[in-house]
């Protein structure tokens, strides 16, 4: 078929008054389409309204159109598989969805309302969104047309061609144009893609549903994704109604939010930034026709400015004016009747960005967030429990929690030895993560803060209550099973971190990861590991990167509660941490004094790790090379000491190097004497035994100390003590023995032992004490004596 014929076929078949079939080709969440559908229903007054939605969701229609239900809401479908995870998918509705408007308007005039798509199970597992419009943004037809009209992508093109016609009185022409546009989309989609995506099968199913509408139930209005219309207008042979099997998936109406709706649009499921399109829709409704575009743009800019002012980002009036002027001029330049979304965003960039924009700038992000909105829907009562509640209940029972009443009970879990107890613990952690108030840990290992991680038992208090159900309903927005919801909740916390300006807080991210592990979230944690990886990648802090490496290693080797599931690996993140550590090594040479203890500790951590079995995957040589560079770059004495010891341990340096360097430090000219001890401290931080494993080192130290003047020695003493605190008591003894040997003495000469005091001397001492106290009292200093806790 040549293109013209395709277009004609759609034009001719869209409205068939003689057979009483009217098609409304739509795009999801398009206010312009919703408007046309609204006018259409009011004019043709159909007896039946058919909507492209899984027919097994039909039982939800009464709840969906209930006056108490306020969009955004979604129908959640849930499918248990024999093997494999439970599948969930969503069909969202907002106030300006053509499907929702068709149902509401249809109900108003008493039309029969039906869903005509294949049951939801057919599409589940392929996507999280049950509406799919990838072709609207990705096909060759769209790219070519966008290029021709000067639009940057399919979204701008759609707005340019169709949303600009919102409020048109001529719904026929509008829908004909949408139909032709979609015919173009379809013509540029290869047949094999249609076959594989299952579109052809779905269209066959829908065609049979349409054909099965009896004459008495006509006229019939068919609201379907525009992409299917070219196929449906051709499939009009009356056939037997499709056989309807009992549904396999469960479905529920849940509250939905614009945030989630926009996220779902990541799956190419409709127009993005719903708050913007809702504004257009509301304006058209108020105006009962084409909105006053200038007023719409002015309203949006003004509201944005006032919201920003509240958040502390004031926008000067001239900048607002310039933004509006630019938006208006841009829309005219681009040949539009009014300012559209892309014009606004472009105008914002022109008017508010001063300076160089890199990637995503703060203003654009704020504006896009504003255009997305925060609306949360309401659902009427009696719509049934969302699946998450049922899932939680089912799991609680399976893990033998008593949920028959609201009684608070205690439960002790043997998490290391009994897999079922571990699963119960994961469930409890998950319920805590979802903030349901179901379970609270009383005692047991605290893996998050690494306290008492060796404990075998976890003790919980738990109780099921309506509050728990309420919280679960709130959490249902994150997912339909407990692990899914946990994954979603973790993601939300991750987003909160970003909004908090802590996007790259590695510690916080690792905590999220650990909480996910404890809650048994499983495979979805891969995304979180990716976030950790990203944060490490840009970490500017040697200690943090080292800490992250250590934390990831701990997780990797953990078994039991903190153990990684098979589906999640932290190897990649560890590799990134290693690369980052190597990269940041060069900073060590310029480390400020106050960070030295932390840096030394991190160096020790890394070397210990790199010498362990877990490090075989890493190219340790690169690290050694980095340390060589540090040593050569005149680092602080502490770092030099540490780095040289590491070099010695890895066999890259001779003991003499170390001795020579220490001599250099001891004999060097420093501003303060304590700097001389820095080298020693750095050395000992990495390895305490180094002192006696290289005899000449001890000799050198001895020579240095004995050469000191008494005063200098006293001055150095606290620093020496600090350096030597790294020695364990046993190591101190060992050192003492070596020193004793060296000076031909015995250890007891150093440790002092017991000082023998004769009875006589003790009595004399006591008498002297009493005399002293009396003298003080006589001098009127009794209080002072009393203050010291002694009585005369």
């Amino acid at each position, binding site marked *: 078929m040549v293109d013209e014929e395709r277009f004609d076929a759609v034009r001719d078949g869209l409205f068939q008054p003689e057979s009483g079939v009217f098609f409304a080709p739509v795009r999801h969440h398009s206010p312009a389409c919703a408007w046309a559908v609204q006018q259409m229903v009011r004019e043709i007054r159909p007896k039946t309204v058919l909507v492209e939605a899984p027919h097994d969701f039909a039982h939800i229609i009464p709840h969906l159109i209930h006056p108490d239900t306020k969009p955004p809401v979604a129908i959640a479908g849930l499918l248990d598989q024999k093997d494999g995870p439970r599948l969930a998918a969503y069909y969202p509705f907002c106030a300006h969805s053509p499907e929702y408007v068709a149902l509401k308007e249809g109900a108003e005039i008493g039309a029969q309302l039906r869903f005509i798509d294949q049951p939801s199970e057919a599409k589940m597992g392929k996507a999280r969104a049950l509406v799919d419009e990838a072709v609207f943004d990705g096909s060759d037809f769209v790219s070519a047309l966008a290029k021709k009209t*000067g639009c*940057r992508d399919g979204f701008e093109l759609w707005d340019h061609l169709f949303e600009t016609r919102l409020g048109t009185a001529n719904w026929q022409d509008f829908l004909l144009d949408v139909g032709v546009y979609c015919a173009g989309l379809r013509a540029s989609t290869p047949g094999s893609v249609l076959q594989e995506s299952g579109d052809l099968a779905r269209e066959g199913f829908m065609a049979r549903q349409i054909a099965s509408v009896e004459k008495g139930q006509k006229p019939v209005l068919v609201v379907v994704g525009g992409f299917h219309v070219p196929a449906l207008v051709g499939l009009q042979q009356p056939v037997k109604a499709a056989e309807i099997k009992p549904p396999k998936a469960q479905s529920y109406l849940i509250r939905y939010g614009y945030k989630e709706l926009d996220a779902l649009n990541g799956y190419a499921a409709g127009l993005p930034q719903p708050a913007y399109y809702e504004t257009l829709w509301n304006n058209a409704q108020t105006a009962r026709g084409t909105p006053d575009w200038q007023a719409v743009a002015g309203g949006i800019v003004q509201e944005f400015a006032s919201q920003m002012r509240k958040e502390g980002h004031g926008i*000067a009036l*001239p*900048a607002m004016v*310039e933004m509006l*002027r*630019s938006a208006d*001029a*841009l829309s*005219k*330049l*681009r*040949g539009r009747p009014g300012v559209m979304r*892309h014009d606004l965003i*472009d*105008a914002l*960039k*022109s*008017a508010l*960005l*001063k*300076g*160089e*924009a*890199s990637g995503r700038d703060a203003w654009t992000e704020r504006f896009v967030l504003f255009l997305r909105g925060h609306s949360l829907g309401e659902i009427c009562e009696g719509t049934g429990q969302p699946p998450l509640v049922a899932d939680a209940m089912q799991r609680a029972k399976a893990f033998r929690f008593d949920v028959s009443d609201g009684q608070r009970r205690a439960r002790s879990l043997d998490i290391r030895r009994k897999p079922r107890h571990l699963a119960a613990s994961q469930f409890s952690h998950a319920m805590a993560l979802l903030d349901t108030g179901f379970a609270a840990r009383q005692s047991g290992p605290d893996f998050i803060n690494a306290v008492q991680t060796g404990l075998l038992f976890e003790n919980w208090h738990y109780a099921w209550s309506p509050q728990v159900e309420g919280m679960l309903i709130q959490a249902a927005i994150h997912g339909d099973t407990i692990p899914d919801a946990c994954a979603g909740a973790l993601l939300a916390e991750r987003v909160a971190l970003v909004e908090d300006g802590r996007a790259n807080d590695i510690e916080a991210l690792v905590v999220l990861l650990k909480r996910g592990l404890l809650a048994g979230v499983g495979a979805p944690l891969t995304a979180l590991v990716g976030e950790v990886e*990203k944060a490490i*990648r840009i970490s500017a802090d040697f200690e943090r990167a080292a800490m992250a490496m250590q934390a990831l290693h701990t997780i990797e080797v953990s078994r039991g509660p903190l153990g990684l599931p098979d589906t999640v690996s932290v190897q990649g993140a560890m590799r*990134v941490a290693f*690369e980052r550590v*190597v*990269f940041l090594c*060069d900073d060590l040479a310029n480390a400020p004094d106050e960070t030295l203890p932390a840096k030394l500790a991190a160096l020790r951590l890394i070397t210990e790790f790199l010498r362990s079995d877990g490090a075989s995957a890493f190219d340790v040589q*690169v690290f050694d*090379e980095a340390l060589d560079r540090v040593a050569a770059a005149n680092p602080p004495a502490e770092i030099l000491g540490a780095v040289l010891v590491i070099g010695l341990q890895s066999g890259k340096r001779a003991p003499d190097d170390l001795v020579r360097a220490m001599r250099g430090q001891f004999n060097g000219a420093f501003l303060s004497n304590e700097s001389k001890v820095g080298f020693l401290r750095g050395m000992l931080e990495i390895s305490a035994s180094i002192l006696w494993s290289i005899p000449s080192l001890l000799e050198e130290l001895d020579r240095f100390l004995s050469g000191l003047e008494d005063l200098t020695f006293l001055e150095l003493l606290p620093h020496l003590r600090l350096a030597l605190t790294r020695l364990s008591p046993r190591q101190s003894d060992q050192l003492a023995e070596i020193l004793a040997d060296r000076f031909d003495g015995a250890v007891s000469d150093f440790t002092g032992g017991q000082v023998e005091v004769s009875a006589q001397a003790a009595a004399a001492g006591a008498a002297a004490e009493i005399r002293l106290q009396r003298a003080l009292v006589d001098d009127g200093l009794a209080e002072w004596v009393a203050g010291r806790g002694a009585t005369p």
Partner: protein
Amino acid sequence: MDVTSSQKLTAEARFKDELALLKKNDPDLKPAGWLLSPRAVRKFILGDAALGISQKFYGDNPLVDRCIVALMGHQGLMLVGEPGTAKTLLSELLSAAISGDSLLVVQGSAGIIEDHLRYGWNYAVLLAEGPSERAMVASPVMAAMQQGKIARIEELTRCAPEVQDALISLMSEKTISTPELGSGTEVRAARGFNLIGTANLRDLGVNEMSSALKRRFNFETVQPISDPVFEQELVAQQVSERMAEYDIGQQMPDDVLALLVSVFRDLRTGQTHDGAVVAQTKSVMSTAEAVNVGHAAMLDAAFLDGASAVTPAHIARHLGGVVFKDEDDDVRKFRAYIDTIARARSRKSKAWKLFFKSAKTGLDG
């Protein structure tokens, strides 16, 4: 000046025919003082197949829209971005299309004084006749005001802050007062006047713009070329243009060219084509710099090494001049790149192996 015989033609001379064609086929409304309507200006820059207008600026169509719209308003237009991103080209094209004149330009530098933005004097006439319009020498900006045209200021941030400040009142009042000619005399901008500035905000040695001045400009950031294939073509073409004058008949082999562009893109964008993340350097890794490195490497190969063709080793040697110019930190980033990305690639590709070895030697001495 006879522009036809100069080294580089102005935009309005180069595209004379296209401009004439657009003018003939321009049904849309023109802002006062503009030679073409905004839509025709857009066509001139982004091309129009129907009229046979070539595309001259690539990569970011909405940016061009915003620039045109900015120039229709009271704000000036400030093009910022890395060197080598065709800011000057864009400003030249805009002024050629809008005013038919891209020569009203002030080249910003530390030596610029206020007179260069306002007016100076022909001292011989001044001494002979005293202050008069005849003795006055208008700056390109003042000339643009008088003629209702677009004036361009290149590298505005290279001018001293006090000189930049002269623009503040000029931009808001759109007048230059000329008290020497009598009190109350001034030059008022004819309609159509506006300013396009280009600036580099990241280089060392540039002066920060005051926020008062910033407020009077709409800023647009010109990004580097995003399409790798196109960038590769552009580099190949420019390198061979430069090499033409040496008459050695060498071409850069494809694998070397791909490697060169890949290294620059990786370090510029912070991501390799297969998704591995790389630390971005602060130094400019623009297409123009890639051409410089390619050029230097080819000269090295031909004249110093006597090699039959340029190899990745030559590229590695000359990267130093770009990457290490002023940032120690960049050396580290480059080292990390060599240690991870280049090392991994060197196991699979001969070109990368040569590059890796040479770069490693260069870094470790």
